[in-house]
């Protein structure tokens, strides 16, 4: 009696084990910790990671955030004589969403004029990367980084003009 019961038990357990791998794909809700493939893509296939010569007059450097907050972004832009951004580089200390936001920012500023780049909004970055609410601050920091780089470039241009006038 016990043996028969045990046999049934084993068969039931075996069936369970064999059957479970073929369960249909589960609908996953989206907790903050699940990385969207667009975010992962920016890390696995990095574009524009690196540095430009910060001493150059055509390069604007923006450094925003703080290590104590867990988010630091450095974004650099290279602008030609006509005011168009021809190259951009970034380096980020931060989570996957922060890396993706700053990476996307460098992609978007390339080819824009300095004025056009000012119009890039954090909400656009967040929408493109499907950032969950808890990660929205990453996109805000990326917008700040763009603005800081542009401000630094403007400052350099003004001082260049100032030197030219002095001569």
């Amino acid at each position: 009696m016990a043996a028969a019961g045990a046999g049934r038990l084993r068969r039931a357990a075996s069936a369970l084990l064999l059957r479970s791998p073929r369960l249909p794909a589960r609908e996953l809700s989206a907790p903050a910790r699940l990385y969207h493939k667009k975010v992962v893509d920016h890390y696995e296939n990095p574009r524009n990671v690196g540095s430009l010569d910060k001493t150059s007059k055509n390069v604007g450097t923006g450094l925003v955030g703080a290590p104590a907050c867990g988010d630091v972004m450095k974004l650099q832009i290279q602008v030609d004589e006509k005011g168009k951004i021809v190259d951009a580089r970034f380096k980020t200390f931060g989570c996957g969403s922060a890396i993706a936001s700053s990476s996307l920012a460098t992609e978007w500023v390339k080819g824009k004029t300095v004025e056009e780049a000012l119009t890039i909004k954090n909400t656009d970055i967040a929408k493109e990367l499907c950032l969950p609410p808890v990660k929205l601050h990453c996109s805000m920091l990326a917008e700040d980084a763009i603005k800081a780089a542009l401000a630094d470039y403007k400052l350099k241009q003004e001082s260049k003009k100032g030197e030219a006038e002095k001569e």
Partner: protein
Amino acid sequence: MLLRTAWRRAAAAVPVAPGPKSEAPTRGLRLRVADHAPQFAVPSDTATAPQAESVLRPLYMDVQATTPLDPRVLDAMLPYLVNYYGNPHSRTHAYGWESEAAMEHARQQVASLIGADPREIIFTSGATESNNIAIKELEAAIQPDTSLVSVMTVNNEIGVKQPIAEIGRICSSRKVYFHTDAAQAVGKIPLDVNDMKIDLMSISGHKIYGPKGVGAIYIRRRPRVRVEALQSGGGQERGMRSGTVPTPLVVGLGAACEVAQQEMEYDHKRISKLAERLTQKIMRSLPDVVMNGDPEHHYPGCINLSFAYVEGESLLMALKDVALSSGSACTSASLEPSYVLRAIGTDEDLAHSSIRFGIGRFTTEEEVDYTVEKCIHHVKRLREMSPLWEMVQDGIDLKSIKWTQH
């Protein structure tokens, strides 16, 4: 046992998808089953139905969060889930009697692991409930100068062992109740409630390769420690925790405790060796890595490392085929870094850079080697992407910079 044969047959039968480029170890207890759940995909409005991708599951290195069920525990539980399903409080028939016998046997198994009397073990739904029962006793105490000391035995984030025996001695001499949350310690380091003068102890099932949803509280009888019940009802568990005791779960808890008692020494030796291997390999290959927590009073299976200039969550994302945890702000819902790391005086930027590696009974050497290799590779890669690393390489002192606050 036939069950284990069935398990192995299941592993062989399921088609295993071609794995990632470097060979992730596939043997060992874990079933590297083709997982049909789409990994890392967030269903958006425009997405089509998720494709049934065959994706291997990540390696499990997060044993402080929870542990897999030991097959011996499942063997012990299964009859009570399928055949012997009586209510252990039913007094009038064999189903009740056999369930009660199993429950009392499990109680004995838990008690013998910690040197207690079985009458001092009350089954609960987990360590959280046990903690609540223990703390409620404080509120029930009448005298203004009666107090309770509550200390974790082994910390779940950094693995530090508290000097429980010394604390117990002090509490007992001052006539103060001593409670310890031993969820991470039971079955891993030797504990004796009498030697260590512990009055109350919380035990968790799923931290020691037992089932989830069950735990126990140890409540000293001599001298008697009075606690107030959290939930009232039919007066089960000596009136301290009403509710039908779930026989299959407590049988699992009991079996887990017995297995732990047998395997403790062997597990400890093996885990120490693997932990040493992990830390040595990482520290030899990467500069600027800090181990959080006292290295001497430390449980080896919980290793918390801070990788300077690399943020914790980005490393977790990079190590996507290993299940790990981090003490970084991004991974806590509150955006605050780990309170434990803050309490031990870790610099805030290092607190954001911490990763916890959990090594358990079923962790293999290959899994450790694979994790170490991937960790080193991705830390190097993330450091290349880090402005802080760049500044440090250029000789800039990061503490001298005025950072913008967001």
